């Protein structure tokens, strides 16, 4: 699959502050891509550059094959973290207006708006003013309006923040459906569980820099694994065993950290000769752990 987005050494500064620092990444078409990072990591700035709202100070950027995101704006949808509706406009008009700004004809925008509002259970609200909607309904209308033009690339900034569980589920389903339809979805979040649930690939950024990047399995494989070991007998110096980076041994129970390339099978073979093993449990690092480690490491470097 060709790249939907390619960033090459992209940098963005605001005065003395560098928001995005030489960031490079590739997003394959038809995948779900997660931007992970703590608040202020540069996620929103990166997404704004991808959608053409901001332009990089240096580095190159290509979106849907175009060097300038503004040229392909009608093929992108962007749902900002903070979003609203024209309170005095009727629901149907708002949805159709945003569709028209993305290049749909008036009649087509109206038709789709009616169809999707009805499908979204908002059929009875089409002629109401937006200020009559509840918060949850408003969020739904925003999502419908943003996606009305059936974009090839969907960019969501913290799509789950402020959503109730019902709407969160809705957005998750939508993202998965878009992937099935061959579209590309990128979204930023600091809720790692969401990313772990649906992402094909992730990038973890902090202080504007890329810390970890890859497909979900690559990222997980590249991280240290943990072995939980229960044993009887004298194990000797567990930390000196092949592949072990760190050992926390309390006599009958130990927690061993394995190097990313260590072979757990070999370790098991060595241990069987030394002690009686009651439990040998290999655990992949969770994305959350990887995220926390990456951020911690980044903070250490900065300090």
């Amino acid at each position, binding site marked *: 699959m060709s790249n939907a987005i390619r960033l090459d050494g992209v940098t963005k500064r*605001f005065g003395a502050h560098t928001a995005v620092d030489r960031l490079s990444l590739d997003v394959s078409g038809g995948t779900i891509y997660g931007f992970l990072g703590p608040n202020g990591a540069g996620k929103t700035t990166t997404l704004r550059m991808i959608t053409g709202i901001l332009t990089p100070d240096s580095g190159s950027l290509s979106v849907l094959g175009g060097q300038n995101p503004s040229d392909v*704006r009608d093929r992108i949808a962007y749902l900002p973290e*903070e979003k609203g509706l024209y309170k005095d406009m009727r629901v149907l008009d708002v949805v159709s207006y945003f569709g028209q700004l993305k290049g749909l004809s008036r009649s087509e925008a109206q038709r789709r708006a009616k169809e999707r509002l009805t499908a979204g259970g908002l059929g009875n609200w089409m002629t109401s003013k937006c200020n009559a909607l509840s918060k949850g309904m408003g969020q739904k209308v925003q999502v419908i309006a*943003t996606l009305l033009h059936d974009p090839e690339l969907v960019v969501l900034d913290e799509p789950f923040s402020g959503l109730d569980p019902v709407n969160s589920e809705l957005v998750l389903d939508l993202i998965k459906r878009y992937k099935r339809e061959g579209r590309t979805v990128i979204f930023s979040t600091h809720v790692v569980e969401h990313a772990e649930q649906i992402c094909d690939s992730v990038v973890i950024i902090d202080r504007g820099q890329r810390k970890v990047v890859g497909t979900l399995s690559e990222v997980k494989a590249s991280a240290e694994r943990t072995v939980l070991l229960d044993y009887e007998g004298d194990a000797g110096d567990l930390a000196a065993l092949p592949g072990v980076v760190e050992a926390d041994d309390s006599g009958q129970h130990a927690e061993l950290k394995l190097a990313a390339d260590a072979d757990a099978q070999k370790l098991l073979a060595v241990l069987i000769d030394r002690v009686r093993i009651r439990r040998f449990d290999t655990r992949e690092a969770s994305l959350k752990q990887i995220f926390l480690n990456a951020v911690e490491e980044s903070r250490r470097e900065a300090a």
Partner: protein
Amino acid sequence: MKLRNILLIARRDYLAYVARRRFWIGVLAIPIILSMFIFVPALIQKFQSAHSYAVVDQSGWVINAVNKRVAAGDLTVLLNLAAENSAAGNKSSLPAPLASLATAAGKLDSAERKRLADAIAEGGAAPETPAALSIWKKRAGLLDWYQGLTTEKARSIDGSLAISRYHFVAGKMSPSELQSKVVNGKLFAYFVIPAKPLDPDANFIYASKNLTDKGLRKWFNGNLTEVIQARKVSGVGLSAEKAAWLKAPVIFQDKLVTKSGSRQATAAEKTAQWLPVGYVVLLYIAIIGVAQMLMMSTIDEKSNRIAETLLASVDPMDVMAGKTMGIAAVGATMVCAWVFIVLVVIAGFGNMLPIGGYAHTLISSISIWSVVWFVVYFILGFLLYASILGAIGAAVNNIQEAQPFFAPVVMFLYIPMIIMAFVVKDPNAVWARALSYFPPLTPFLMVNRAAAPPPLVDYVATTALLVVTAAIMLFVSGRIFRIGLLNTGAPPKVKELLSWIRTPSPDKAGN
């Protein structure tokens, strides 16, 4: 720039105002409030009951003479009314006694009508012209009819008739009777005329419980003074004609000097010289009102978090162009609605206005060029102020933050309002010309000076200067707009604004 998006945004912003009921309520409210200043005093006068008064005439002759004087004044009003309606071909609206002499009255000039009215009321000599004579012959019927008029009837004919406002209560009354009638409101006031009113130290008395409303006293005093003066004049052996000649004030005839010479100015032309004041007020309300709408609508988009969604679809400059265009159309709609309302009001109720019959002539005296320039200055003035207020709207997050930026602009715009009356009086004064060359004031000063009219060089040079300034301001405000729209933190300081303006690409928003 994408024209389609600009038009879409313009259309939305236009409808966001014009499709709302409260917009039209606001549009209607302004002429209604303004017309209240004109109609309410007229209405109050109309429904005010006539002031009744009594006269204790110790001289034995004064009140008779005063009543004749009052009748003479009213007959003049009636003859003038008859003449006006005859000229307008509107005789049928007159009461029968007036309708029958309207054609003849129309043939007399205003001085002749006054002389005729005096002669009829005060028993002077018969007039000589056939038209006046034909009225003279009907004098007995006319006087009978006039004296039989009730206050209400008189008011329905013409509110300026003295008998519609003041009612003379005849008959002798004792001092205590007068006192109690004034106290219980049967009488508004009474006058005491001394036995020898021509004496230098004669003591005239006006007694009322209301000494604030001086209308009755002034009116009676005017008539009384004429009567006393006339008696004094005849006492020294002067004929009435000589006395009138002696008393006659000097009257200037206004001549309007134009390229083709000088001629007598019509009443409409005299009023038309004040027309530019109307232009200035209209321009002020339109420009400041509409530019403020742009600011509010931009703030609205920021505070409702729509700006970022918009910018993902449209260039910031397109957003600004679309909004400016849409809101300008709102302003044009507003001004057109006002002009329409004014025309309808003048066509329908023109005769109720204090400027009365002038209104139609006034409208027809508006030159097409002054309207063209008004439109030009509205557009340029709007662009200039819209760019300033639009940038303010984009830079701040809410109306409170906008206040410190907005207030100086509003204060500045008081200048044209303060000086407009002086400019009308001397439209080509050096200072007025100099101020016209200051672009933020150009639109107001130039429409203010329209009656002069200003030299062509002023039109061309000030407009060129204004176009350049508006273009620069639009550019500057475009840069502020582009960055400000995404700026959700504290409102920028002047230093930051300058750095936004210097930034060539749409870059400096927070992340």
